[in-house]
């Protein structure tokens, strides 16, 4: 194996022999590489028995693939099985594995399924609506008294149930994170009769019904999975000991996004006196408001004097001007932020550039550019300006990468529209546009055709689906388009597929130009007939039959297989109607339903694969990635508030009195209940503003540190034209200006 050239901090980590170690790693410091190298080192050191493994736990599936391929490349192996001395998994997959190992410890049968968000939302919504129906005056306590009757009616019908759904979902998530099941919550509430907690009353009512519905469906939600994982570990000591023996070393990546429960699972697995390495960057904790994640856990772990603390401050990713900008953001937040409550949002260590002889040196400063566009634009103008800039830049940089990072998907779609209209080459990476969605979508279209073979529109779509991987050159595209147009006009599909007296194909002029199309249509007819005749097969076999002819890549075929198994399961005890299977596949295709365990879900996105095009994505999705040039949009006071009077916050609904953040208030009520403390209305709302603002500052930090060489930051005046630049934007713009001087 090639000898590794390591930075001092990396070498120190590779010298790890055991115990609890916390690593605070700045962006671009090479933590994936370092953890992979540590894994290889532990395996080679002979510290592991041949029935033991290093366990690497990370956040998303794309990271799993990344780790696996890196470790594999670092280990020698011959023609035997790839080394099984390590296992890389996400936390959810780990919990899934634990619960499936010993479902009996959690009161489950081994064939439980994990229900995705769409389905769980549907169950929750039904529970919420039932509860609200039984408690029609509940909203009176919280609605803004200044609403007109008409507004109030509209709110009660639409906005209020949506808000309650949100509250129920997040509070139940928190309850599960605190290992509080529905019965335990109800019992605790019963002790608070004199100090009512109305929001938690609602949550408790919904929670009970929701859990019963999950049980009826033989399902868990993702939060249950984590909860049950810990339950299983605590329920049987010998099982825990077996896993502790199997995994004597646990390496955790992205530890800043760990929740209490997730941390508890890993701590339990590591055991007191065990070996647990936690790597993360508290400055990049950007999922708090969506989840129960809290960077405080990692900070506390690192700051615990008992634990080994090894910072990784050196990064070769960005040029010095960008590093300085990022460091300035840290300092400004820590020392100068207008709102002292936000000074905890970011913390040291600063990012340090690499040494001169580093194998991955920083891009030269003279090649770098940092620009804060201080002029304010309307939202539309902002995007137009950015797109113009991209269009000028691209032709001169065909071998470099560029990204537009937006705070929300909606802005991303707006940018995509303009890019499309201006024929600017782009790649959209907004929703999970994964193989799962495409595969499901293709299958759904095929089944739609089989379900209604007399409809020309489905026949025409089938034609397109059949050609899904073939439309690369212009001639092919033209032929596919021509065929599609023609088939849409085929009034009587039976005259094409099974002509009786006249063949619809004969209407094509028998001229030379039409011959390729005609031949292709003849081939298509054979395929369409075959699939229609296969409709007699059970649904899983039908899906496989179509999939085996339609798909090429192993990932698509594997997904087809998995979908087939799921379709068979759905058909075994419920409907066997094709339309319901189509709906199921369609929901996956539209990303309305996740398909857990699908292997290429969120498969790693590699910016290097898209040189010469601009990538459009959110700042969240951009985390972990890097581009030569980065545009950060919408850095205004709405997207990056400072929790000062006058700032607006999305979770504070216009129809709620006193600008209360009911979601935060509900969670505060839950915590008061759990800790048997007093609850005071409004405190949580204020705290939520701080936490939200803090997270947005970290998001800005993430956005800045995506850039290798060039960073351009813009802001807009918002829908009503009344927004200004974010305070952080102004501070950094001033800094950059001063640096130039």
């Amino acid at each position, binding site marked *: 194996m090639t000898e590794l050239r390591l930075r001092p901090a990396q070498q120190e980590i590779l010298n790890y022999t055991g115990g609890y170690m916390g690593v605070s790693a700045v962006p671009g410091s090479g933590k994936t590489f370092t953890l992979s190298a540590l894994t290889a080192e532990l395996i080679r050191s002979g510290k592991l028995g041949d029935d033991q493994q290093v366990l690497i736990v990370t956040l998303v599936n794309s990271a799993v693939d990344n780790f696996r391929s890196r470790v594999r490349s670092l280990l020698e192996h011959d023609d035997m099985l790839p080394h099984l001395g390590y296992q890389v998994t996400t936390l959810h997959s780990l919990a899934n594995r634990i619960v499936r190992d010993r479902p*009996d410890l959690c009161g*489950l049968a081994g064939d439980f399924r994990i229900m995705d968000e769409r389905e769980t939302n549907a169950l929750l919504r039904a529970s919420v609506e039932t509860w609200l129906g039984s408690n029609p005056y509940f909203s009176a306590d919280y609605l803004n008294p200044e609403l007109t009757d008409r507004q109030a009616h509209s709110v009660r019908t639409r906005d209020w149930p949506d808000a309650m759904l949100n509250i129920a979902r997040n509070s139940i998530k928190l309850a599960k994170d605190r290992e509080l099941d529905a019965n335990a919550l109800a019992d605790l509430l019963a002790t608070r009769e004199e100090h009512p907690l109305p929001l938690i009353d609602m949550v408790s009512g919904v929670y009970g019904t929701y859990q019963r519905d999950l049980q009826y469906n033989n399902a868990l939600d993702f939060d249950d999975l984590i909860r049950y994982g810990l339950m299983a570990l605590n329920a049987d000591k010998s099982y825990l000991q077996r896993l502790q023996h199997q995994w004597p070393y646990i390496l955790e990546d992205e530890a800043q996004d760990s929740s209490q429960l997730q941390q508890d699972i890993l701590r339990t697995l590591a055991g007191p006196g065990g070996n647990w390495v936690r790597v993360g960057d508290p400055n990049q904790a950007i999922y708090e408001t969506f989840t129960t994640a809290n960077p405080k856990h990692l900070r506390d772990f690192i700051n615990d004097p008992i634990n080994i603390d090894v910072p990784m401050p050196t990064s070769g990713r960005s040029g010095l001007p960008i590093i300085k900008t990022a460091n300035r953001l840290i300092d400004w937040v820590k020392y100068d932020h207008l709102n002292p409550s936000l000074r905890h949002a970011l913390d040291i260590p600063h990012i340090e550039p690499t040494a001169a002889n580093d194998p991955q040196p920083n891009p030269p400063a003279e090649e770098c550019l940092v620009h804060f566009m201080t002029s304010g634009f309307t939202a539309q103008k902002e995007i137009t300006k950015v797109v113009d800039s991209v269009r000028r830049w691209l032709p001169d940089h065909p071998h470099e990468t560029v990204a537009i990072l937006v705070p929300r998907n909606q802005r991303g779609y707006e940018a995509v529209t303009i890019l499309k209209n201006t024929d600017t080459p782009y790649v959209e990476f907004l929703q999970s546009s994964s193989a799962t969605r495409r595969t499901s979508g293709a299958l759904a279209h095929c089944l739609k055709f089989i379900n209604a073979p007399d409809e020309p529109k489905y026949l025409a779509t089938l034609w397109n689906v059949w050609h899904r991987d073939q439309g690369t050159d212009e001639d092919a595209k033209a032929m596919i388009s021509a065929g599609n147009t023609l088939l849409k006009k085929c009034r009587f599909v039976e005259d094409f597929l099974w002509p009786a007296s006249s063949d619809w194909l004969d209407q094509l002029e028998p001229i030379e130009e039409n011959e390729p199309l005609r031949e292709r249509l003849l081939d298509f007819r054979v395929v369409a007939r075959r699939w229609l005749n296969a409709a007699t097969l059970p649904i899983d076999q039908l899906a496989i039959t179509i999939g*085996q002819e339609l798909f090429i890549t192993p990932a698509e075929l594997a997904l*087809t297989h998995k979908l087939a198994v799921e379709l068979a399961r759905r058909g075994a005890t419920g409907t066997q109607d094709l339309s319901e299977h189509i709906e199921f596949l369609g929901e996956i295709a539209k990303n309305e339903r996740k398909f857990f365990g699908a292997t290429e879900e969120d498969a790693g996105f590699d910016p290097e694969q898209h040189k010469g095009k601009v990538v459009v994505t959110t700042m969240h999705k951009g985390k972990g990635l890097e581009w030569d040039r980065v545009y950060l949009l919408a850095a205004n006071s709405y997207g990056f508030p400072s929790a000062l009077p006058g700032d607006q916050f999305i979770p504070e609904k216009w129809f709620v009195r006193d600008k209360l953040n009911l979601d935060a208030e509900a969670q505060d009520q839950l915590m008061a209940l759990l800790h048997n403390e007093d609850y005071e209305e409004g405190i949580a709302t204020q705290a939520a503003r701080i936490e939200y603002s803090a997270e947005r500052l970290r998001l800005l930090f993430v956005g800045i540190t995506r850039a290798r060489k060039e960073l351009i930051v813009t802001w807009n005046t918002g829908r009503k034209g009344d927004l200004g630049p974010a305070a952080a934007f102004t501070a950094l713009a001033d800094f950059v200006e001063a640096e130039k001087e």
Partner: protein
Amino acid sequence: MTITWFEGPAGTGKTTAGIEYLRDKIAAGVQPRNMLILLPQQTLSGPWDAAKEALAETDSNAATIRITTFAELAKETVERFWPLIAEDAGFAHLDRPPVFLNLEAAQYYMSRIVRPLLDQNGYFASITMDRNRLYSQLLDNLNKASANGFSINEIAARLQPSLNDDEGNLRIFADAQDCALRYRQFCLDNNLLEFSLTVELFTKHLWPKALVKQDLQQRYTHLIFENLEEDTPTAADFLHDLLPTLQDALLIYDSNAGYRVFLGADPAVMLGLRDLADETRQFTESHTSAPELQNFGNHLRNRLGQKTQISDLRFRDHLSFEFQRFLPQMTDWAAQEIASLVHDQGVRPSEIVVLAPFLSDALRYSLSNRLATLEVPVRSHRPSRSLRDERATTTLLTFAALAHPSWENVPSRYQVAQAISAALTGIDPVRAQLISKVLYDIKTGTLRSFANIKPDMQARITFTVGEKFEHLRQWLDAYRAQETEMALDHFLSLLFGEVLSQPEYGFHSDFDAAQITAYLVQSVRNFRRTVGTTLGTDVTVIGREYLATLQEGLLAASYPVTEKETQADAVLIAPAYTFLLRNAPVKHQFWLNVNARGWGERIGQPVTHPYVLRRGWPTGKLWTDYDETHFNRDQLQRLIGGLIQRCSEHLHLGITEIDESGNEYQGLLVRTLSQVLRATMTPEANA
């Protein structure tokens, strides 16, 4: 009398020697009708049936040799002596005969008893599982009780102290106990006999009676019992009593089997019978497995905790493995390898088997398709197939739903289109869809007349098809117009006979469809006869109930696979345990999904437990993860041993990173395999 004991692993000649024993006994003058051959399951009777047939060629009396199972023997004894025990056993209707329930009917009744308890009384509230599996596991508790000879009143008392003392779990076992008692009472109230009750009646009420013993002793004087290790402690108790009354007995025991533990088998208890033997013969030399492969198997089994003889005998040349990321890549590899063996190396397809611990229909179908494309004949081993999946079934039941509006089970347009497509000849799926769209009134669940639609639509459908459709429609209308409904099985027979089997209709030349129809009619009839005792004779109720139960998945409505299929020269795809129990060695075995959980781990069963409910498990002893691991390892080493004993040339292992469900998992087998390969294939080991 002499009790002879044969013992050894599979493939060492025990059955051959046993058949020789049988021949010797018949030649020595034993009356064939006095010879009883017992097996743990009827499907293992192949070699004995063949031996019986061969003997019958020279002695027609050989046809009276009885080959059966202990359970079947119990059942027929109960039937014969029913009046003797009905009252004592607590049955309510002494004037009526017993109604023996097959597995489906047993599950059906369990579902009817338990469902209200789930929905209204919060039973099993703390667990999450599919309801059909719950019913199955509740029945398992009863079966385990009878298999081990303890009272069904002891179910919770045995499970509770051993399995997790969480309060929620304790409630589960109390609920399971209550369900068992309610079910048993229901059976007694309605003269219904499922497996556990039948065995209990035999062992507790009949067998102790001198009259019954005498009857059996007069009929059978000689016994052969093969694969003892796969039968239950109750069968062992029976043998203990029976053996001293016989003139001769041969007991055959596979020393490393015991695959039916989950069905109540207890090899350790059966091994105790060896102490009664006068002569013991050990079989050690394998005739069916290469020594190198046995060594490989022994290495694996050694790692799993079984003391075995391992040597330096190199096995690498008898082993191939393929590591892929995804399942389809593995099936591609397997198909290509098999095609190469068959077409390039001249291996007969029947000498190749493809195995997985659990074989989903999707995997089975996917691999079969690939093999068919490569022109390799293939068959799947399934003891039975589900009627529900058959096109003929869905066609018949769709028309049945249309003919019985009282069922309130309105087929979808798609179902009607499919049924029309199957029922009429000369129609394509598109025109079938047109008929469904234009001539099917989904609101009323009726078919409209072809004559009443516009001429251009008639032309599209074609008049030939229209005429056939019209005949079918009128037949259905005429049936609906009758005052009384027929029993569903009668209706299906009539529909087939008067319409679908006629020329110009879909089942006329389709022999498979005709056969499926016959099986379906039989299934419905069986259902009507067994379930009818409690549901009454209202044909509407029974017909609707049959359809609903079939759709729920509760009623598998299986039918047996034909002889022709089982004897084809084709590659066999089968679940690993099913292959083992067929006991037919091959030259090449492909093990798929070696990484999967199923190789070495049992499926979780929250309301029952195959080990805790065993005779040998001390009541009150906690079942820990150590026990779980120990038994899993033991089962895996038995499985490996059994499979390798049945492989004479080469083992091909297919490993994927991602299993069928999309989960990444490194199971016990792949980890053990990795350890063995690393230990045995180092440069030092191969120097």
